């Protein structure tokens, strides 16, 4: 009787394993319920602009945006352009605050809706004043792009970009002024990555780094080299504090390894002694 039950069970199991389509089924049944799994936001802007009906030039926009730092941080179309992302018929209406694409002169205020510290510095700078008075000059998009915006880095300042209106010399001087702080920030970023790999939760250090770096980079937008040089020390000091904190954590991790290795040695030692004691005494 029990052998019958056993063999029936085994026979039942085998064909079930052979069946296909398991992963989709599981995803559909377990992970797609409203209470399990993330909610995927529907966005009318993306739906239309990425469809086949849209002209290629506009279709590229959504692809570009998807690669951007904005996309990774949940900044969507409507956050800059206005409009209603939930209702396709109202998505580009005036009532829902749709702004369309800004022209070159309107770009600084467009991005400055959120990046207000940078806007303030920019408007006071040579670049901002040039754009205001002549309508020509580097606005945000010239250096940072429009839809595929990536985190800023020092290589945005290069010969090709910065010699369009004046000699590269000026830009080079600024790049040199920024260099030290940016390099240190890069080292700290690597240090944080190494800490994360070691399992440490680094939110505090990441915020401190972001805070300091953001303030420094906002300062750049004044394109005032003397100001940057003046305040480099202050920023270097702030970054130094973060660096010391990170180094301290590494030292702490090493001492932990040593302590647990010591405990391991103690237990292994006791094991060996017990084993030796258990052998019959040779008399």
């Amino acid at each position: 009787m029990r052998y019958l039950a056993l063999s029936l069970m085994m026979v039942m199991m085998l064909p079930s394993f052979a069946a296909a389509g398991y992963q989709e089924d599981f995803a559909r049944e377990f992970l797609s319920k409203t209470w399990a799994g993330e909610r995927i936001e529907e966005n009318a802007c993306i739906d239309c602009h990425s469809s086949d009906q849209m002209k290629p030039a506009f279709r590229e926009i959504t692809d570009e945006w998807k690669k951007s730092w904005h996309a990774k941080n949940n900044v969507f179309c409507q956050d800059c352009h206005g409009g209603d992302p939930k209702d396709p018929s109202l998505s580009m209406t005036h009532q829902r605050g749709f702004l369309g694409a800004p022209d070159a002169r309107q770009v600084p205020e467009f991005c400055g809706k959120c990046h207000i510290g940078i806007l303030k510095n920019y408007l006071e700078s040579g670049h901002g004043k040039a754009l205001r008075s002549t309508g020509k000059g580097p606005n945000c998009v010239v250096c940072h792009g429009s839809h595929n915006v990536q985190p800023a880095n020092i290589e945005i300042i290069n010969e090709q970009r910065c010699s369009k209106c004046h000699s590269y010399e000026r830009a080079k001087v600024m790049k040199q002024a920024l260099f030290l702080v940016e390099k240190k920030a890069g080292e700290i970023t690597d240090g944080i990555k190494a800490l994360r790999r070691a399992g440490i939760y680094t939110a505090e250090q990441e915020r401190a780094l972001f805070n300091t770096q953001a303030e420094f980079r906002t300062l750049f937008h004044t394109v005032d080299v003397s100001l940057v040089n003046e305040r480099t020390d202050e920023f270097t000091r702030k970054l130094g504090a973060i660096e010391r904190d990170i180094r301290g954590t590494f030292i702490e991790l090493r001492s932990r390894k040593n302590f647990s290795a010591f405990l391991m040695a103690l237990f292994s030692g006791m094991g060996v002694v017990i084993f030796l004691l258990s052998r019959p005494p040779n008399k």
Partner: protein
Amino acid sequence: MKRRSFLKGLLAFLGTTTLVSFVYPIFRYLAPPAGTETSKTVVIAKRDIPLGDAREIVFNNVPAIVLNRPGKGLIAVSRVCTHLGCLVQYDAANMRLVCPCHAGIYDLEGNIVSGPPPKPLPKLPLRVEGETIVIG
């Protein structure tokens, strides 16, 4: 028998060392932290902050701001934006605190009005003693 007594002695030694190696961490773990950073209080004279104005201070290494709000009195909040840590600035014209990094906006209670911050600004303990304001 000398070998056996040596081994037994060694075991006793190792065992005691192991015990101590655990007792010490247990003791350190349970012992109350050595004097919670005795928060140095920050003291400002009341007349240093006229109505509608504010004063930036540092309290326990945290940049903070003391506001003299018309109709609502004095309040001290941390200036560290709860989004990514930038320092908020006092916008007297619009009676609010604004973060220059991503336009996080707080009211003069520290509550979020708009923008990316996830939590309100933490308030600091403040009391008025006669003509002075004491934070902490």
